């Protein structure tokens, strides 16, 4: 199955890559936070969907929660903040995920379920719970 | 086998035919629109909820799927049991089986929460699931019946008709058992936990399928002006009576065995006595209108044999069948799950309460469009391929009966 997907992607990628070369005519992609992506930019452009699907299965079925290809992390880095300081959906028109996909006529349903904006409070909440859990080990 | 039967496409584009196509097409379109509306807004716009998770679309879908395998019955009688008079009818029988199944499945798919993921349903299987087995049974049914139709229609292949007929016959028995098992496997639901569910569904399929077959037959022959003999109709009418009686019998077995098992008394009281709308539907809709009245119409000498009574009986069997499936599917869910036998339960999630369900127009529209889809496909198919014998006059189809005087012309008309 994976081989099939790869083959498919390899066939389509020239089109996608072509879109990237001529930036002037291609989509305008907002830049991510930091200096580099979780893998080489070129690799990400071509294979992000495969890595995401793989990560999805690893996380949901096997409980693997590495950050590298986590969708949550993509959002953390790639979602922009509006002029008024409020976060903008990563999948809104012109935003990171949509910029390319609209151009390449790809539709994704991921953000029907997945939060499309980063949530800073999340980390703190879980950290607190972890602390509580440490205390709860012996209680009740 | 004196004269070979002549099969002909329906000719002409008369206003009646066009009106039929337009009417059915409109029903199909409104069903699709309803499905789109349900998907777009989410299922909260329907009557379904977290208590009644399967609603009106499932009633229609299950009815159609069950009827599909029953519609094949006429063909089986001809090829498997060698009854010559049914032979001219087997093409239509196969065609109806295919279209009814397609209509039913379309409704089922359009009611999914994520119909856009149909491809997932077809590529990812859980082999333990009865649902997944059914996907194979349905696909196989299409293939088997298609081959069966082909060997009938292709002269060179005619000699394989009996073999193909047998395969189709066995396949459809398994298919209906599979559909029944979808419910039979729900151990937690008091209403469905009965071994008789399989045989009951087979009896239902015989009865609903034949009723629909009779109606379609009478409509097409009436509409095209082709001759249709009384004798063959009467034979099928008597057969329908047998099937209706079988459904009543297995329904009785279903409820009596449940009454025998102490833990099922609650759900039986609900359906048979205290279930309000479900109790009325069961007794008046299913038993009286869908069972006893058709039996009277088909068997009492006063009515027996007349076309009007056969037609009326068939209509009642179809309506009663829909009611029966409604009582099984909706009534079975309305009765609350028993988490704590013998206790009084209450919660914010409606534990311990009989669930309420009010079907929305959208669901009904979607369900009806399944029937319309099936009929539309029939109407188009008989136009482009020779499914219908030019004449079904008694003399034309069963030479043994020519001695009995018949007034109908034996020639093809239209």
């Amino acid at each position, binding site marked *: 199955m994976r081989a099939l997907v790869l083959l498919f992607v390899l066939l389509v990628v020239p089109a996608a890559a072509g879109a990237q070369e001529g930036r002037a005519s291609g989509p305008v992609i907002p830049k991510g936070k930091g200096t580099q992506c979780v893998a080489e930019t070129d690799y990400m452009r071509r294979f992000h969907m495969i890595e995401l699907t793989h990560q999805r299965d690893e996380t949901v079925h096997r*409980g*693997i929660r590495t950050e590298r290809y986590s969708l949550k992390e993509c959002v953390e880095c790639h979602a922009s903040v509006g002029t008024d300081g409020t976060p903008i959906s990563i999948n809104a028109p012109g935003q990171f995920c949509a910029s390319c996909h609209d151009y390449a006529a790809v539709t994704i349903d991921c953000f029907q379920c997945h939060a499309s904006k980063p949530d800073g409070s999340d980390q703190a909440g879980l950290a607190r719970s*972890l602390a509580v859990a440490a205390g709860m080990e012996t209680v009740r | 086998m004196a004269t070979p039967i002549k099969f002909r496409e329906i000719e002409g584009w008369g206003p009646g035919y066009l009106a039929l196509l337009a009417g059915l097409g409109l029903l199909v379109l409104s069903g699709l629109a309803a499905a789109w509306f349900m998907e777009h807004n989410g299922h909260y716009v329907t009557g379904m909820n977290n208590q009644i998770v399967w609603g009106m679309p499932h009633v229609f879908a299950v009815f159609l799927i069950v009827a599909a395998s029953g519609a094949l019955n006429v063909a089986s009688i001809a090829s498997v049991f060698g009854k010559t008079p049914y032979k001219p009818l087997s093409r239509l029988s196969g065609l109806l089986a295919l279209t009814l199944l397609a209509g039913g499945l379309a409704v089922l798919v359009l009611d999914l929460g994520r119909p856009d993921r149909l491809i997932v349903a077809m590529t990812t299987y859980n082999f333990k699931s*009865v649902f997944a087995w059914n996907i194979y049974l349905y696909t196989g049914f299409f293939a088997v019946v298609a081959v069966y139709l082909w060997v009938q229609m292709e002269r060179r292949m005619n000699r394989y008709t009996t073999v193909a007929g047998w395969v189709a016959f066995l396949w459809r028995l398994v298919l209906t058992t599979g559909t029944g098992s979808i419910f039979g496997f729900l151990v937690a639901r008091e209403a469905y936990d009965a071994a008789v569910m399989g045989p009951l569904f087979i009896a239902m399929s015989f009865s609903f399928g034949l009723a629909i077959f009779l109606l379609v037959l009478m409509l097409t022959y009436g509409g095209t002006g082709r001759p249709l003999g009384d004798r063959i109709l009467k034979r099928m009418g008597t057969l329908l009576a047998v099937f209706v009686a079988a459904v009543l019998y297995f329904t009785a077995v279903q409820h009596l065995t449940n009454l025998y098992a102490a833990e099922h008394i609650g759900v039986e009281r609900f359906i048979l006595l205290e279930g309000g709308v479900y109790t009325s539907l069961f007794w008046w809709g299913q038993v009286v209108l869908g069972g006893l009245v058709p039996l009277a119409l088909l068997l009492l000498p006063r009515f027996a044999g007349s076309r009007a009574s056969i037609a009326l009986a068939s209509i009642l069997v179809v309506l009663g069948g829909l009611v029966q499936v409604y009582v099984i599917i909706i009534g079975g869910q309305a009765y609350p799950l028993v988490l704590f036998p013998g206790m009084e339960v209450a919660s914010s999630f409606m534990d311990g309460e009989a669930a309420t369900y009010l079907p929305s127009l959208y669901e009904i529209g979607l369900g009806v469009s399944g029937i319309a889809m099936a009929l539309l496909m029939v109407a188009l198919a008989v136009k482009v391929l020779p499914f219908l014998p030019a004449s079904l006059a008694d003399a034309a189809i069963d030479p043994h009966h020519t001695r009995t005087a018949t007034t109908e012309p034996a020639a093809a008309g239209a």
Partner: protein
Amino acid sequence: MSEFDWKRRHFMSAAAAAAGVVLAPGVTLYGIAAKAREADVPVTSETRWGLLIDVNRCSDGCDACVSACNEENGIEGHGRPATDAQWIRKVQLRDPRTGIEKHFPVMCQHCAEPPCVDVCPTGASFKRADGIVLVDKHICIGCRYCMMACPYKARSFIHENVSEQRPYAPRGKGTVESCTMCVHRVDAGAVPACVEACGERGNGAMLFGDLNDPDSEISQRIATYATRRIRADLGVDPGVWYQNL
């Protein structure tokens, strides 16, 4: 590919997160770090997570577990009780002979032999190796057969559009969902939100732990006290135990 050093970049944020934990007064991450699984290690069947609920401690009117669950997983009602999702609910039980009333929460019972998993046509309903029963919402087609099969009425269908989801708890229209035992927290070494809330704001009626570890507190309590499970007669081997029910 392998030379690419993405971890160096990530080091910063990981350090920041750890700092956040140390900030919590008086507690260090030490104790759990030993217990929590590394992020890249898959779950195994050596563990079977379960819950024990002491019905005598649970009181009428307290809904700490329910509100914590809703808060944690971003479950917001639309004021339509028949179609709104409920992962955990307080059930009131009354014995008609004695009139004795009991109150306790019911959620997905995380069966060892889950009927929802058996019936699911696509395999979206599944049981993780550590016993947590989940829906893989990526392959759920919304057929709702699992809801028909569940003996506990534990599942909800998402009947309308969802927005403002929690990043760690994605939810969306057209799929079925139920209690995940807060799998995202468990994977990080924390206890489910309901258990935590019951301990902090409720009556301490809920205990979370490893049923496979004979030394765990939950196993000890089950071994010591009279406990039962709901509809154990169905043979589904639920992972949620009740004491004093």
